[in-house]
């Protein structure tokens, strides 16, 4: 039921969108999101888009992981010297 990979909106008509998941296209309902447009990256669950992502975030490149790790370590830091 869960599609963990984000897809890109390639066509949009009202609340119906065609989303491209790396070549596999699926019709998706976008009524649970505000301000969607063609070219947006979305997470899709049981036929509905449930969240938007930036293209960089969708691709989860090494830079993204560096950022995530930094963010999490920042959140955990308060008071302790970084030890890794």
């Amino acid at each position: 039921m869960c599609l963990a990979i984000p897809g890109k909106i390639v066509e949009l008509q009202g609340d119906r969108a065609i989303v491209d998941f790396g070549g596999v296209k699926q019709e998706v309902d976008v009524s649970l999101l505000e301000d969607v447009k063609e070219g947006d990256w979305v997470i899709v669950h049981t036929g509905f888009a449930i969240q938007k992502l930036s293209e960089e975030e969708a691709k989860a490149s090494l830079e993204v992981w560096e950022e995530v790790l930094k963010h999490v370590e920042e959140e955990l830091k308060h008071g302790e010297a970084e030890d890794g």
Partner: protein
Amino acid sequence: MERRRMVERIVRRIHREAEKLDREVSIMHVCGSHERTVVEHGLRSLLPENVRLVCGPGCPVCVTTAGELAAAIEAAEDGMVVCAFGDVYRVPTPRGSLSSCDGDVRVVQSARQAEQIAESEDRDVLYLAVGFETTAPTTAAVLLDDPPSNLYVLSAHRLIPPVMEWLLEQGECEIDAFICPGHVSTIIGERPYEPIAERAPCVIAGFEPEDVLIAVLACLRMVRRGETGLVNEYTRAVRPEGNRVALRAMERAFEPEDRPWRGFPTIPESGLALREELSEHDASEAGIEPDFSIGAHERCICDRILRGLATPEDCPLFGRECTPTNPVGPCMVSEEGPCFIKYRFGGGA
């Protein structure tokens, strides 16, 4: 290559963190997709010996009770068209399964498809709505969009934070920290975890192996320091406020009610019932009421697996009498079920 180095870096930090702890630590996730990442990438084998990554009740099909499934089976046998997700379709119950019953059962991929089937049918149509906060808004969207009068919804939707609270309170499975489900969190955001995060570290995580490992690292760090709190590792998709449109739809269509889960007793305010205003579409209007006293196969240990007390390998039927082609329990049917995931992605029986 670069990704492997990143994974190695996180794993090194996890080991360093675990060395400073002189006890075993259990981290529970409550998401079928997390279990899939963990098993497919062999993440448990990368963790230190004193760190246990436990699979909890994160498979929505698995926690749906035999009573709810049997009610849908009965509806199909009584002449209703029943729409259900593919994962639900093959789950066996003491009253048979939707796939083998004598009735018109259609596999759908979304609530919208059930609505379209109702539009094209003269007969009454029942949509068996299974899923957590990720799926409930999709059912809500259809219910609030003036659906055809012959569409009835049997809401088996359940909420994740109440079951996490139950697990903590109950203490039967000693949980030191939680990894919170990524997609449920895209909808509900951070706030609903706050009461839980006051008592145990909670980390919202995405579905790549790096996501899960970073979440393990964050949990361990908090456990070691005796801290609690909520960390959002999955900021790429989870905003602190969640998805407001989806939350509003869910709120307008449903109200929480006490509900039993497979493997669990009744958990307060853990199910979603249709609001009074939408009662004309409630399955009960069509005479469909789940009988929660219907049990499960007596040798299937899905109940213990879902509570984090056992793993699929502990089940004597796993890979022998119970396989994906011949499933005995829901955990072997659903793509998010721990037995199915172990069988398919964890090197078989």
